[in-house]
């Protein structure tokens, strides 16, 4: 074995990968599907949604999208313990999620709702965050609709905008439970330096950033109003 390779087992299957490979990537090579919302193969992993947690026998579970494989590691990706925590994480996200997802309603590929079905989440026991503090919508962009209530702060749009496209518009703003995404100095999207490239809505896993129906576009030139 070359010294730059590490050997480990995932769900009882042995695999050898280059040092520095994440558990999530190693599992993919074995066709083991570890659920994830914040990670995308096109992006630097950030390990924030925690749905990809796996058991490596440590004190706590490890986010597989950011955890490098280690020699001799024994990884379990779908034990009852791991699944229990994934269900609770989904319950947390769903407790704040709007009744209707714009993504599910249009393109039908809402990744949060898909996982909710996969994990059989039928009821949510946690209080609805939108009840007294709704996060609002931003329809100021002619092409992209923003539903802050459907945002799970996965950071995909931030990385898509700032790291993939280098348009440098989107950030997380605020702190703690009040964190949300923002454009420039927290301007409405339509008044920001957004060039409407569409990367953010393409990478968004939920109904937070979706294609806005073209009906909102004014066909007259702006200065002609």
């Amino acid at each position, binding site marked *: 074995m070359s010294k730059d390779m590490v050997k480990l087992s995932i769900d009882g299957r042995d695999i050898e990968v280059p040092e520095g490979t994440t558990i999530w990537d190693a599992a993919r090579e074995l066709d083991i599907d570890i659920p994830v919302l914040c990670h995308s193969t096109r992006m630097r992993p950030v390990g*924030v949604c925690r749905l990809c947690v796996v058991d490596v026998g440590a004190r706590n579970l490890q986010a597989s999208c950011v955890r490098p494989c280690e020699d001799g590691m024994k990884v379990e990706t779908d034990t009852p313990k791991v699944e229990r925590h994934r269900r609770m994480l989904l319950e*947390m996200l769903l407790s704040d999620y709007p009744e209707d997802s714009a993504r599910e309603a249009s393109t039908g590929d809402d990744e949060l709702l898909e996982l909710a079905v996969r994990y059989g989440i039928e009821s949510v026991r946690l209080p609805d965050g939108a009840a007294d503090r709704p996060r609002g919508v931003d329809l100021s962009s002619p092409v992209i609709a923003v539903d802050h209530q459907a945002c799970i702060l996965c950071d995909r749009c931030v990385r898509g905008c700032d790291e993939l496209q280098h348009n440098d518009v989107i950030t997380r703003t605020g702190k703690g439970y009040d964190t949300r995404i923002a454009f420039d100095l927290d301007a409405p999207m339509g008044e920001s330096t957004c060039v409407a490239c569409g990367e953010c809505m393409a990478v968004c896993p939920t109904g937070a950033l979706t294609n806005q129906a073209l009906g909102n576009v004014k066909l007259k030139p702006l200065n002609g109003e």
Partner: protein
Amino acid sequence: MKLLQSMLALQEREGSLSDETLRRLAERTGEPLYRLQGLRSFYPVFREDPAPAHTIEVCRDVVCRMHGAREFRARLADALAGNADVEVKEVSCLGRCECAPAAVVDHHMDARDVDGVMAALAGDGHATPVVEARDAATDPYPDADAHYGVFRRFREGADQERGQVIDALKASGLRGMGGAGFPTGMKWAFTRGAKGGPKQLVCNADESEPGTFKDRVIMETLPHLMIEGMAVGAWVVGAERGIIYLRHEYGQAAEILRQEIARARDMGVLGPDGLGKGKPLDMEVFISPGGYIMGEETALLEALEDKRGEPRNKPPFPTNFGLNGLPTLMNNVETFAAVPIILERGGEWWKSQGRNDCPGLKYMAVSGDVERPGVYCVPMGTTVNDLIERAGGVSGGRKLLAFSPGGSSTRFLPADKADTPLDFDAMQEAGSGLGSGAFVAVAEDRDLLDLATAQARFFRNESCGKCVPCRVGSSKAVTLLDEALGGRPQKGLPGLLRELDDTLAQTSICGLGQVALSPVIGVMDMFPECARRLEDGGSK
């Protein structure tokens, strides 16, 4: 550091960071607006709106809550009603728990009642008095001229003596006093052995956990020990500069540390020849833009890199991948300050200072229901009963109900465990932890469920928001707890809280989320009456 320092300087000059101010900064520096917004909105010291003439920050956390902070806040609101020049803000623990209920006027004056606030507003204010730790016994020097003797002796020594320093620290049993208790000698050895450089050196002086104020007292009264410990660390790992990351509420400590750094330069300890002829060593104080999470070592590093202070996923650890990706030696104030005497008198000597087989000396911040709150230097292994006695006993002649041995992240233990020695392992065995040495005594007439909920609320308030379990879970749990304290608990609440706690502990990125609900689960486990109230909504 540069960008955050520019933002701090701009706000100092202009009173706030308006959009206009940030646009100018963006033009000047080439930073994108989104990045400035991310920073402005994350750090509590920054403000977007124009600043009022005066600000009063009132602590809302557990020790001040015990001492009438809510009533204080209400009386202040009455007294200042209609006064548009004054802004009254509730803030997280100010690190002045021995003066509870604590308030800070215009960021530098201390007040603990309405009269004190009014006097400060009228220009007759004062900073928190500098008080020495009681029985401080960790200064090996007879007088100020002898300061830095250990470092000056070592830096002349041969390379192999670096290994001897690490051996002495290992022999001493010294563990990280910031709360995690990681063996100090091992940390120094890891950083020294790490590949890459130049090595970085950081002192974590951001203690912010409710009940914690021992580092403030050490910095204000024994600053030379901390600076010397850092200098020795720099020599051992090979760092050329040290950064002291200080919470912004400790303005007085900042001043004292800057004076001490200047004195160390005058003495030739720091400066162009700090580590020997032609080998520079210098130190600087970095004022944190605020937030408890910054005390988490990787969040702190993110701040020093001008990012939002959100903890990193670990591994890698800072010993290998720290500031700007370089190996970084980071210790807490008290840990660095213990180094000179350990090297002067030997690791075995330090070890022998403890009791009940526990090594060394410990600075405990004692507050809550005791007669004489303050910082006490005690042998590690001193029992809780002895510590309370040292602090004059439970105040008002009351009986002890419970105690929190180490801060908001450590569970309350019942009075019948007060014979437990103050020690990392012993406290863990007893079902709690030594944490950062923030001891809070709770007398018999207190509502423990209310206090444990206040601790969960602190973690909710201070969550950085990066990962789902901490951001969402801590908020949901506090909402559920508040409903229960209001007499309307959700059906099956105790079980649901246990599930939430389990997921936070297992899946959160950092220690904040991992412990956020631990104090609540602790009172459910150890005080059946608390569990019952969460079930049926009854009052105390």
